[in-house]
């Protein structure tokens, strides 16, 4: 009992110390330490601008989520049910958009779809100068496209990991009962996948809801979300009390939303028989299967094309293709105090990401176990554990500075603040990927092992980890990715020696000039390469000899 008490207290303590305490500290500060007045709330709710922002945020997040699901599910199917050459690499590539800094992605879109981009150049080459111009940048459309582009890998990863261990018998028996492919999917497969679909959908929704960079860089300030409004109120208008009030409104809304969602997800969970993924892949392929695979792969490549366009730009110079930009990354021509060799920068990113991933796995796994325990409180806790993802980054960032500013815990200036911030946004991924598997795990497996003489710890090691391993790896992938691509918190605390890859990219793009752009793109290419390598390594990592679990 004490062990299980500790298990509950561990993640809760982490949340309380590193999330709730800073949040309360900054909100207390925002309201001047005095009683919580209603004035800022009245000001907000009486202002149609802020009400409009809240409404816009909700509906754009909803639409973005739906679009992302539509884009992600076919790819999830591809990875869950088919084996083909290059699958591991392609799988690693699909997750890349998730980690790219928004401005770099924006440049990818521009290179492809911009006024002077590949598509429009081709159009005018074919149809002449009066050719129809494709305009997507700085429109509402591109916000949806970009959210789908950024987040579809969440759907792909989480759903395909679950799908891969779902017995095909269900679908087959539906087929025997006369259901066609589409009806089998809609009436049988999709309901069985629901726990995983819910898991990914909530993450996509939350990411679209709190979207900041995508909305601003690709859409422009006229499409400001609540998150943007909080940022501007805090940093530019110094209206801390109004920003705090808006943050509270955002928090309350999302908490209620998450709570309801958690209820729904818990209800959608059904214990199902899990089978080894090897037995699930379709081995004999019909021509139709091959066509489907080729089609989805082609679609995927189109989705990834903005990134390919970036790489192309990184290696092109006025004198043709060359590695000039990469080479110049290695020299500190101006003798800058802030220069770090790309090796050091990559190492910084990797070590922070590894540390964050480790913490996120510990906290996320134990939190997931707390949540699946039966009881009425599970949804309350579930929603609570998700909050770090939805709270405004700037609010939490300043919260850290206010909360941990005195010995014995003065985190200001320590790299720990970075790692903790990264793990706070990474561990919800671990929770969300684990929940469907934990809820779907037949309870008798653990009990069987216990009766056979395995202590709870050995049950965890020998039975639970192998079975949740796939989900755990997906969680690790995202935790790693979140940290590698994280940017806001990294910018709030940068000492030269802590420079990460996204920070280096941002620094290069802070000044005009071709060389800066070239080096930024080279750095972005490096980021993609490092992360892709990391993904492949995680993918190759197998827990003992358990194979596809």
């Amino acid at each position, binding site marked *: 009992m004490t062990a299980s008490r500790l298990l509950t207290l561990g993640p809760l303590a982490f949340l309380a110390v590193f999330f709730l305490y800073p949040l309360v500290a900054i909100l207390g500060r925002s309201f001047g330490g005095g009683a919580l007045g209603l004035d800022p709330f009245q000001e907000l709710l009486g202002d149609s601008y802020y009400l409009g922002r809240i409404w816009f945020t909700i509906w754009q997040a909803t639409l973005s989520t739906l679009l992302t699901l539509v884009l992600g599910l076919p790819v999830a199917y591809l990875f869950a049910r088919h084996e083909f050459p290059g699958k591991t690499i392609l799988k690693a590539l699909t997750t890349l958009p998730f980690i790219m800094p928004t401005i770099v992605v924006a440049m990818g879109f521009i290179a492809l779809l911009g006024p002077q981009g590949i598509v429009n150049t081709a159009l005018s080459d074919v149809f002449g100068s009066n050719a129809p111009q494709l305009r997507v940048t700085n429109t509402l459309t591109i916000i949806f496209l970009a959210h789908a582009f950024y987040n579809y890998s969440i759907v792909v990863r989480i759903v395909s990991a679950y799908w891969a261990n779902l017995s095909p018998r269900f679908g087959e028996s539906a087929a025997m009962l006369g259901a066609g492919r589409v009806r089998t999917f809609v009436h049988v497969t999709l309901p069985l996948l629901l726990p995983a679909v819910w898991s990914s959908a909530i993450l996509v929704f939350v990411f679209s809801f709190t979207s900041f960079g995508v909305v601003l860089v690709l859409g422009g300030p006229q499409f400001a979300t609540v998150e943007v409004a909080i940022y501007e109120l805090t940093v530019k208008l110094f209206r801390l009390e109004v920003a705090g009030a808006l943050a509270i409104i955002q928090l309350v809304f999302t908490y209620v939303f998450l709570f309801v969602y958690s209820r729904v997800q818990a209800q959608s969970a059904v214990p199902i028989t899990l089978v080894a993924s090897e037995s699930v892949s379709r081995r004999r392929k019909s021509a139709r299967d091959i066509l489907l695979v080729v089609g989805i792969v082609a679609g995927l490549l189109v989705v990834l094309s903005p990134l390919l366009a970036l790489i192309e730009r990184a290696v092109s110079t006025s004198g043709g293709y060359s590695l000039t930009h990469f080479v110049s990354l290695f020299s500190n021509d101006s003798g800058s105090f802030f220069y770090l060799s790309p090796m050091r920068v990559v190492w910084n990113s990797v070590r922070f990401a590894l540390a964050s991933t480790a913490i996120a796995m510990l906290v996320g796994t134990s939190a997931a176990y707390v949540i699946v325990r039966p009881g009425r409180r599970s949804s309350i806790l579930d929603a609570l554990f998700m909050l770090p993802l939805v709270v405004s980054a700037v609010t939490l960032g300043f919260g850290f500075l206010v909360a941990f500013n005195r010995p014995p815990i003065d985190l200001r200036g320590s790299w720990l603040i970075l790692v903790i911030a990264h793990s706070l946004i990474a561990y919800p991924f671990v929770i969300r990927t684990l929940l469907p598997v934990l809820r779907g795990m037949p309870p008798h*497996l653990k009990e069987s092992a*216990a009766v*056979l003489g395995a202590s709870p710890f050995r049950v965890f090691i*020998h039975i639970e980890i192998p079975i949740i391993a796939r989900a755990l790896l997906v969680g690790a992938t995202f935790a790693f990715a979140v940290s590698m691509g994280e940017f806001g918190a990294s910018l709030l605390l940068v000492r030269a020696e802590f420079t990460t890859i996204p920070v280096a990219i941002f620094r290069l793009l802070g000044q005009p000039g071709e060389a800066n752009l070239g080096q930024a793109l080279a750095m972005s290419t490096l980021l993609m390469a490092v992360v892709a390598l990391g993904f492949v390594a995680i993918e190759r990592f197998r827990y003992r000899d358990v194979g596809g679990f």
Partner: protein
Amino acid sequence: MPLLEVNRAFNSYGAVPVISDVTLNAERGELVCLLGPSGCGKTTLLRLIAGLETLDSGTISFDGANLHSVAPHSRGFGLMFQDLALFPHMNVYGNVGFGLRMQGLSSGAVRRRVDEMLELVDLVNYGDRKVHELSGGERQRVALARSLAPAPKLLMLDEPLASLDRVLREALQIQVRAILKEVGVTSIYVTHDKDEAFAIADTIVFMKRGSVVQAGPPETLFRAPATELVARSLGIRNIIAGTIVGASEDVEIATSVGTLTVGGPAPAEMSVGDEVLVLIDERQLFVEPIHDDPSADVIVLNGVVRERKFRGGEAEIHVTVGNDELVSIVSSADPRSDVKAGQDVCIVIPPKAITLLPTA
């Protein structure tokens, strides 16, 4: 002293009592069957003994020691679940050897024991098979081998054959009993199927709504069921309601088919005026066109054959007597089986075929 003693056990789920006041013993080497309709608490009782649930009150002792504070993994018992719970990420070898590895046996010892077990359940050379490649019967035997491998001091089996088809189930019942007896392990076997219980058990414990209704060897239960439910659950069909009208020397019972006189003193708890159930063993009563032996000490009733069915080598003759129906089972080789539907017959009941049961 019994090996396993469950003494006045209570358990509830929320406010709903699941097990109430269960007392149960198992001797060393005994095969005890928990029989009863689904939802009667059989599985919960198993889980209590395994330590997967905790008692509200009462004790469970094994070999004289109270199990209260012993964790499931330290009890040294085996439990085979209805869904078998084979570990999907391990092959047959990994599954069967799991408990042995948990005991810290060397890999050589594990291998020897696993091979031994696979031989016992007739699955030699199946070690490398993946679990999902096995047929239903093979999985059942793997699960049995896995439960037996660590040589459990007590083996519990929760409806282990329920998911199999009838033919396979009957074949495996015999095999399972043979294996359990060969190993000599004390076992508790849960089933809702009386035929399975009769085929397997040394002792049957009949449960209803969380309580033990009756416990004893199969023959005892069948001969002297404690309640109508037990009787009906055991498949006794000849049950007639009546009232005791005389108990001075022979017991006389007034029923819808006439007054039945049963030799010998009435059971102590019965007296004149009590309502009782008359149970008649369908294998001991018989049907004759004419009963012409008045000297024999039997009860003779008149009736009409409603139907005659053949089951294997036996005939099942349904006879309408008044408002009731009695069934007689005789060998189809017996000339007494040669009756036709609609024929008037005499029903001959030897007194020893009759059991009296007080009504609830």
